[in-house]
């Protein structure tokens, strides 16, 4: 059953270019949205009962015949599956209207689906090498998606992204090769088992460094972030949302967390490095965002900053820290995709991304303005929206772990966040309406539907955060909290 998460988008990705010859828009729209909805429903209703008592390994079936594919599902991967499905559903229905003027919709959806298949595979794999392969699948699709517009900016951004990303993949793979050479296996269980019996701190430290650099580049942690402010703004808006909302988290943060917490075990050295990188990312991202005039570039820098929060929280390593990190990860997926989608709506309506040229758009695009205000307030951590709670949890976790300086810095970073989101909101939506945008209209139906869905989720998650934590986050946090023990249970993999 879990295999559907990979095979459905993958098969559909293969079919869509052919179907695209028959029906240029309707069929791809319909099929892609239906597939996303199906995956979302699958994640919420079918996959959930499976982890009732801890993680499971499920053998895949292909038309009834068992395959030698074993998929790992536990609270953490289910949580990521849910996040991926949710954001990609919103992004897909948004694309129905947005991608009209790009053309080649079938191809676009095929790439999007391939990316989702890659991410789902990554999340469900219980093996370092398989994780790497699916990481590459998602990455290759994302290179093409960033360059989808084929303008100079897109191509340039995509090229730099690819070249840096390829280096990151090489780092990851080198590390895997060393680990393979040391332990003789690549599955989580075998690696965890092998490392437990051997006493080779320095080799493991070296591999951790390589992993951290590789996944850190995918997650865009400072100093590996440089591709993100180019790639995310250049991509079509739904893809920006997808990349910032999910991809950097799945291929960066998830992979990193899974390996460090679940396979290697968090050492004090790693805690220090992770928290320092987190804090540096928070500030570099926030300060750079402050100086941006391009709305999407500002959002992209802000992603770096927010990922910094997530990594900071995971770096603490305490149960509360992990929980806070997961919660912030989820929240960031919601509001950052929302903000990117709104930026796309504004860009489509006005033809510009420059904040200087906007102004007063709330009058002509009220829905976009409202949802964007919700997103901005949420990301800036204004109560009672979701961002407030997750940041509060992070800060509480820092204080609990006696990292008072980091806690103070995290608060300061949040103040800067509020600052530049106020700037954004003020310049784009409030104030006097720029003459040129007199005739601008509100975004079309599906685009608005996607943003409203995400905005509502921001509010609901904020109001009912105990429920969200209970039902989705706690199982995931439990898995990570158990550390290496979980991987050792899967030794028979």
């Amino acid at each position, binding site marked *: 059953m879990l295999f559907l998460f990979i095979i459905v988008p993958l098969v559909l990705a293969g079919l869509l270019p052919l179907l695209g010859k028959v029906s240029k828009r309707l069929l791809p729209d319909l099929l892609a949205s239906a597939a996303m909805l199906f995956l979302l429903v699958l994640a919420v209703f079918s996959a959930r009962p499976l982890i009732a008592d801890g993680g499971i390994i499920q053998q895949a079936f292909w038309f009834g015949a068992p395959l030698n594919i074993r998929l790992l599902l536990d609270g953490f991967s289910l949580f990521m599956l849910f996040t991926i499905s949710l954001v990609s559903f919103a992004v897909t229905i948004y694309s129905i209207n947005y991608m009209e003027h790009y053309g080649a919709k079938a191809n676009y959806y095929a790439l999007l689906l391939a990316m989702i298949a890659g991410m789902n595979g990554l999340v469900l794999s219980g093996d370092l090498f398989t994780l790497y392969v699916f990481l590459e699948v998602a990455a290759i699709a994302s290179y093409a998606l960033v360059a989808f517009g084929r303008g100079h900016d897109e191509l340039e951004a995509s090229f*730099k992204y690819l070249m840096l990303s390829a280096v990151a993949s090489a780092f990851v793979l080198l590390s895997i090769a060393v680990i393979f050479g040391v332990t003789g296996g690549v599955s989580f269980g075998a690696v965890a088992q092998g490392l437990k019996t051997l006493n080779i701190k320095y080799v493991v*430290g070296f591999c951790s*460094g390589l992993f951290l*650099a590789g996944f850190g580049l995918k997650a865009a942690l400072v*100093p590996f972030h440089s591709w993100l402010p180019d790639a995310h703004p250049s991509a079509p808006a739904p893809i920006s949302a997808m990349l910032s909302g999910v991809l950097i988290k799945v291929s960066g943060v998830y992979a990193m967390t899974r390996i460090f917490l679940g396979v290697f075990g968090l050492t004090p050295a790693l805690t*220090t490095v992770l928290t320092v990188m987190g804090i540096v990312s928070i500030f*570099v991202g926030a300060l750079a965002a402050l*100086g941006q005039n391009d709305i999407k570039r500002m959002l992209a820098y802000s992603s770096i900053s927010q990922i910094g929060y997530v990594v900071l929280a995971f770096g603490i390593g305490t149960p509360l820290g992990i929980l806070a990190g997961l919660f912030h990860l989820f929240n960031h997926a919601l509001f950052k995709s929302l903000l990117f989608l709104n930026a796309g709506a504004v860009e489509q309506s006005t033809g510009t991304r420059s904040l200087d040229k906007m102004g007063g758009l709330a009058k002509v695009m009220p829905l976009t303005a409202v949802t964007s205000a919700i997103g901005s307030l949420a990301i800036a951590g204004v109560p009672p929206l979701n961002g407030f709670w997750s940041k509060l949890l992070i800060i509480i976790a820092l204080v609990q772990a006696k990292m008072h300086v980091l806690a103070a810095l995290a608060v300061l970073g949040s103040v800067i966040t509020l600052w530049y989101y106020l700037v954004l909101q003020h310049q784009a939506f409030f104030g006097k309406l720029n003459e040129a945008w007199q005739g601008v209209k509100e975004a079309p139906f599906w685009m608005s539907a996607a943003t409203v869905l995400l905005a509502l989720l921001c509010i609901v998650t904020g109001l009912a955060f105990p429920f969200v934590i209970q039902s989705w986050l706690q199982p995931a946090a439990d898995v990570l909290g158990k550390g290496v023990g979980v991987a050792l249970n899967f030794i028979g993999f």
Partner: protein
Amino acid sequence: MNPQNLLIPVLLPLLLALFSFLLPRGIKRLREIVSVLGAALFVYVAVSFFGGKETMLTLPWLGHGIDFELRLYQFSQFILLAVSGFTFLIVLYSTVRMAGNPRLREYYGYLFLTAAMSAGAVLANNFVPLVFFWEGLLITLYALITIGGKGSHRTAVKAFLIGGFCDFCMILGIAILWSQTGTLRLSDISVVPQGLTAVSFYLMMIGAVAKAGSMPFHTWIPDAAVDAPVAVMAFIPAALEKLLGIYMLSRICLDIFRLEVNSTPALVLMTLGALTIVLAVFMALIQKDLKKLLSFHAVSQVGYMMLGIGTAIPIGIAGGIFHMINHAMYKSGLFLAAGSVEQQAGTTELKKLGGLARSMPLTALGFIVCAAAISGIWPLNGFVSKEMVFHGSYETGYTIFTIAAWLGAILTFASFLKAGHSVFFGPRGLETAAVKESRSPIYIPILVLAALCVLFGVYNALPLRLFIQPILAGHAAPGEHLDFTAHALAVFNPIALISMGCLLIAFALHVFGFRRGGNKAYLASEPIHRLPVLRTLYDLAEARVFDLYEQGIKGLQAFSRFLFRFVDRPIDAFFEKFVVQIGRAATGALKAVHNGLYANYLAWAIGGLVIIVWAIGALTR
């Protein structure tokens, strides 16, 4: 009854609100038709609930004792019925009165949202949903006032801030009560206000009476009377807020806290009530605008209800609650009549109006009946409920409250003599020559309300037995006499006779003032206006010296000027010179290093890798 059905009174108006919001502006009649039918359905639901057994609904919500709990019992059945009835009448009235308003979509939307929130607040049996609905009402009130157009925004903000402050008090009170009792379920709490719980009582009382519009939280009502649409005035401050505020007050005094006769909290409540009666009616007396006059009366009458409930004696409480429903009827009727006059004559200034009784007989009839009811003329409903309050307050032994109430009665009647006289009788105003009667959807609600005033007066046994008695049944001491119908219309007792005397005094005052004012009815209150001490007080009131909100704003402005000069400027300088500069420098540096060169970016990544590996190596021991 199925407990799930309890959601209907909340969801039905909510659906209607959504419908109105979603229906495109272009479609003309559909919105009105659906609104009227929906409101009628709402009434039907409320009627079908009435008299049913006590029902509870509990839906799990946030956990930790915070559940979505609704409870339907005698009292809430009754208030729900009233809420739905008023919603229906106002919607009917609005179909004509609000027609052509460009913001009709929002108007009906917020109207039904208000109804939904009210229904929720009435039914809520847990403090958290209660506060949720209560705050929702604040927002819809804000939105509805702003529909008034120009200048209404300021009033809306005022109403919002005052309401917000009082609601905050209530939340604080609830929090204290929670910490004391450990539960949030209303029906589980029953404490004697002492110590901390007394503080909680006062705070919650502030929340409740402020919703009802008592002094000193009333100041937005007269302002709103000028700025907000008259239908909104008739719906919210005149009817709904009274219903909800007094309902809440009764529940606080009867259920949640066990108020004892002449205990300190009871005396505080009665004093507040008496002050509200007297002060507001003095302000009402001198108003020269019909809507403003009515709105001050809306404040003044709250005093009777508070006084009645504050007595903690069954007859007083019954009187207070009965007065609440009576007041809602005649005050809505009066506001609607004022709206009818405004629509036809184009103004509500008493000076410009006159002699409208001939051209608008039905409106005039409605107004006169309602005015007689509010003045407490035998045998209308106002008489009955006021008598009960008088009796109750007299029985507490503090005659001063009774005297204050009588004083209020005198001035109420005097001011309505003035108002009715100057609007409907006397010579015709020059500007109002060609006035016609309003259309039927306008006068029907007025007449219905007037008829109800008569009905509830003459057949007072009906409301008293049907509505009031079941409410008290659970709270009065066993053996207490609860049937007040016997002496409701009795005139031959000292208290009723004094009341009658009061009315005569009021009539005499009016005639005296009318003569002194050169036979101009709108000047009839001038003699009182010009009494030595009162005059100064009136001038001060006119300058809004007693308006806590305005004074508070002034104080805040002074404080903020102080802050600005001595705290903000230095901080600002610090930020300006230091923080912003550093921020700008950092931002500039970051922008400069992101120079777009691939090799540069890769060098960072490799450098980062080296540093990380070194750091991990150094930190690993």
